[in-house]
């Protein structure tokens, strides 16, 4: 008993010492928020379901589901020291979950902020992330295995003026679907540039412009490319090209 008491005393003492010395610089709390837009229009799950957006091809469309995977969220300071704040996070706009990365604490300073859309090849192995398995985020092995990058779904007015459906799913592009498929890493690096973190709580907003998926450089024709895109290698490459400018730094705000 005495020993335990001594041990507790020691622990408390050490803890107090650290608090008192005041040498380590105070860290700043940093939040990353994911926000979504269709060009200028802000998108969230309350704006889902209504056919109200126009893509570059000229199709009117709605969103019924949007979720995607962000990985390797990393701040790098000017000495090149990297702090990875998330290995991966499923941003689920439909359920309004995973929309923040909070709880990061960093010394004030200048950083570059990078993340990745989807798992890069070495991390994209089937079945290894229990939460993503339970979220039905997996890609069947015959389609290359691993995990989805994005599920974007909705309705559009087709060439015959009828309401039609689309499911724009991005994955690691795969050739020769089946037991002998060949997979190609089509995840996308997101470089959000340089960010100054001052000594007050900072919120970084990252925007996904959904319109970009249908626009740049490949104008997307939903009449021909609306489903069965996972096993469509050429479509996955077009999607990866269009994904290059989907994400941008919206704002960095310090709360006084």
């Amino acid at each position, binding site marked *: 008993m005495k020993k*335990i008491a001594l041990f507790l005393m020691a622990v408390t003492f050490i803890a*107090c010492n650290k608090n008192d010395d005041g040498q380590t610089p105070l860290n700043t709390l940093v939040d990353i928020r994911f926000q979504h837009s269709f060009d200028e229009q802000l998108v969230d799950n309350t704006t889902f*379901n209504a056919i109200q957006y126009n893509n570059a091809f000229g199709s009117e469309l709605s969103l019924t589901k949007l979720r995607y995977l962000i990985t390797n969220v990393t701040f790098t300071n000017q000495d090149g020291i990297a702090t990875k704040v998330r290995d991966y996070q499923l941003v689920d706009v439909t359920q309004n979950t995973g929309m923040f990365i909070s709880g990061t604490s960093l010394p004030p300073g200048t950083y570059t902020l990078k993340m990745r859309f989807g798992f890069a090849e070495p991390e994209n192995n*089937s079945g290894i992330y229990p939460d993503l398995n339970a979220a039905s985020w*997996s890609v069947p092995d*015959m389609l290359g295995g691993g995990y989805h990058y994005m599920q974007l779904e909705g309705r559009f007015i087709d060439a015959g003026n009828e*309401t039609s*459906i689309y499911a724009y799913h991005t994955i690691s592009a795969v050739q020769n679907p089946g037991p002998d498929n060949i997979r190609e890493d089509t995840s996308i690096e997101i470089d959000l540039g340089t960010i100054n973190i001052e000594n007050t709580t900072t919120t970084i907003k990252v925007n996904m412009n959904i319109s970009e998926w249908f626009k740049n450089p490949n104008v997307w024709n939903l009449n021909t490319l609306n489903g*069965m895109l996972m096993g469509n290698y050429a479509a996955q490459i077009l999607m990866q090209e269009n994904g290059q400018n989907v994400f941008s730094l919206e704002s960095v705000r310090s709360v006084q």
Partner: protein
Amino acid sequence: MQKFTFLVCLLFLTLCCTNDDSSEGYAPTPASISIPGVFLQLLPAPEIPANNPLTEEGIALGRQLFFEKKLSANNTLACAGCHKPNEGFSDQRRYSIGIDGIAGFRNSMPIVNFAWNTKNKFNWDGSANSLEQQALEPVINEIEMHNTWPNVVETLQTDANYPIAFGEAFGTTTISKERVAKALAQFIRTLVSGDSKFDKYVLGEATLTPLEAEGLAVFLDEDRGDCFHCHGSPTNPLWTDNDFHNNGLDEDFLDLGLGDITGDPAQFGLFKSPSLRNLAFTAPYMHDGRFATLDEVINHYSEGLVFSQTIDPLMKTVAQGGVQLTVEEKAALKAFMLSLSDPTLATNPAYQNPN
């Protein structure tokens, strides 16, 4: 500072000692769910609400209540009357019959593996937000057990054994509807199904027949069944996404499903994706039990899909009426789906009537 530390330590020690010596503050025995190998390998740990932890006594009480006909107004119907262990904890009648001989309008649902249902939406229409909340409803439902909670509480309170059992489970012999629901929820969380032939295959303890293997390929293949987005895959052994969809059954809805609860027209005709586990025991199928056999279900997806405004965007072949499977593909798909059935559910001694 040192003085303070010393005081904290003293306080801590005092607390420890007091705890050791005292006999008051009864606590039931903590219990846990036995987790199947496939779940251990692939799924997160089960989620148990902090305000209703699993205990041996709570589970035992919940089991008693689950099989207790006194929960119904005329002592004839227990939960188990419509959720039968040997029918995948579901009911093979298209519509279960309540105590007044009146049939409901939806097919009963299998109630297994809910400790992994982190979406916490229950019933075909998502009307309940927790198992604790769900358990309150059938007792007073007019076409189910048609009782009142004051009446149930009084019946149980005047019973010779229940007050003791509640005392053991919750530290108080005072019975309330909330405690009844908590005990039922605890028992239901222990209902786990993870020992099908396919589970053994995933663990490397069984091999699929060529037909079953081909059926799995049809199930996963985007160009053929494409079932996995909503119904799980070898890496999601729940075999459901626990989400709500319109899978193309009707052009006009008699039953609005999720939309009836939310009032949102975009959700009219959406129903919860059922787990494909234990289909061998849970016929008939769909929210209204309209399909008596799996062949009918497969035909629906193959050539029976109909369009409506809320059709799920994943039902991509709706314009062609379905995924157009060959006779061989249909047989394979059926064989595969049946390999997800777990015969141990019906025989697990922990799940049988204790009364």
